């Protein structure tokens, strides 16, 4: 059934998906100051430039802090939602599911724009708080979905057994359900972290003077400079992501949840 031209299409697909990464790698080590191809010579200057540019370093810490905080909060608040949706039948469950999947249906740029206008209406709000709210809201669909999936894999009788043996619901959840969900929670964490860490559209409007996320500061750097520094940042980010995803995949089998 699988014919030769199908294999050719597979090769084309992978060239298209991964080719740009190879080009970025090459450009980040090339010595030309403008983006000529193929790059001449070899230098690590662009990497040095990344670490000397405070814009990148500051925004990296903003992104890291933001991704950790919003992922944690969306998980802690999303977990009970996933639990309620998988364990109980209730009248409003359809509505609840719609509300929690809504942030994925609305374009990110629109979310950021609407939130900015709303926050201005509310009065002075710290830029970091605004970013945190925006990122937490867009992470709910992922947290709820991944944790629901891992809850569905767990036999509800195990929990019922704990309850019938005298544990109350909360104890049953903390001592029986939670330990069995470790892999799902960790997968949701990695997925949420990466989603927040890479987000541009929501952060774009919510960023403020001095407080910017890394992808947004990369974008604004590109408006003024056209040199391989961005290639070097990208290379570092790809390495960072591969390490993160590979570790997660080895430990938890991340791809079954995506």
């Amino acid at each position: 059934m699988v014919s030769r031209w199908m294999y050719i299409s597979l090769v084309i697909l992978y060239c298209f998906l991964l080719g740009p990464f190879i080009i970025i790698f090459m450009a980040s080590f090339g010595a030309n100051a403008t983006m000529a191809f193929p790059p001449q010579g070899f230098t690590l200057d662009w990497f040095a430039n990344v670490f000397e540019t405070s814009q990148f370093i500051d925004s990296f810490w903003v992104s890291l802090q933001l991704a950790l905080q919003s992922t944690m909060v969306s998980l802690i608040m999303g977990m009970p939602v996933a639990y309620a949706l998988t364990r109980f039948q209730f009248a409003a469950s359809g509505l609840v599911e719609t509300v929690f999947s809504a942030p994925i249906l609305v374009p990110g740029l629109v979310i950021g724009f609407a939130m900015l206008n709303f926050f201005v209406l509310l009065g002075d709000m710290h830029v970091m708080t605004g970013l945190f709210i925006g990122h937490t809201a867009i992470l709910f669909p992922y947290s709820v979905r991944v944790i629901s999936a891992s809850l569905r894999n767990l036999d509800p009788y195990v929990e019922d057994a704990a309850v019938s043996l005298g544990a109350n619901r909360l104890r049953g959840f903390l001592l029986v359900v939670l330990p069995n969900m470790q892999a799902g929670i960790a997968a949701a964490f990695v997925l949420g972290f990466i989603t927040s860490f890479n987000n541009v559209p929501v952060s774009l409007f919510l960023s403020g003077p001095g407080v910017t996320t890394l992808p947004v500061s990369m974008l604004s750097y590109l408006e003024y400079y056209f040199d391989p520094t961005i290639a070097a940042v990208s290379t570092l980010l790809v390495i960072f992501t591969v390490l993160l995803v590979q570790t997660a995949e080895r430990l938890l089998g991340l791809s079954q949840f995506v």
Partner: protein
Amino acid sequence: MLVSPAFIFVLVFFVLPLIFLLSQSVLPEDGGFTLSGYVDFFQSRVSRIVYLRTLKLGLIVTGICLAMAYPAAFVLARMPARRRSFLMSLVILPLMTNAVARTFAWLIILGRRGMVNQTLLSLDLVENPVRFIFTETAIVLGLTQLFLPLMVLPLVSAMENIPDDVLEAARSLGANRLTTFLRIVVPLSSDGLVLGATLVFTGSVTAFVTPAILGGSRLLLMSTLLRQKAVILFDQHAAAVVAVVMILTTLAVNLLLRLGRVRQA
């Protein structure tokens, strides 16, 4: 009770801002309720061109993704599990890297002294570098690279579920390869196809980074138009209209395709 903290959060910080956005689009700062913002949007030549261009490029990107992903997904779905899971992780990898990094590569490929131009010049096919950046072609290439994984993933998981026996049965009953593919594989993987097409199309018509880098202010799409109205022209009323049109467009596509899927089932 369990749902309430998160529910209140989403209600206050997500639903309320959207309601406020909607009200901004029909209530200009000076005056009462009016739909003039929407009338202006669809009467203005510029915004009409931008809207149609956005939809057109979305359709083209979806078509190209479909054509590239479909046969490849079939090969992936028929592979031994170990090799497939390795190859699938390579499909997921680009999804995990930010859009700025991935779009930047196209500047190197398509730039004035980029890969394509150097090749054309050295082969004497052109005398002067060709301008590729700030063209629709560049945006289409960038968006296709960005959203291709979203087409591959649902297609592969739909095709995995087609049993080998069904294909062999079709072959042994006399169907040739093409007939088997069109009459067995395509209908049985239509769920993945619809999901992939929805994801790619809605992603393409709302993406910001790619049109911002590869289209700039010369070749606006809806997302870059929204940004321009809000940040450069300071016209929050008009920006709100653009934002609402974007929401309605993605909702309409989602509803349409969902309806189509229900009817088929």
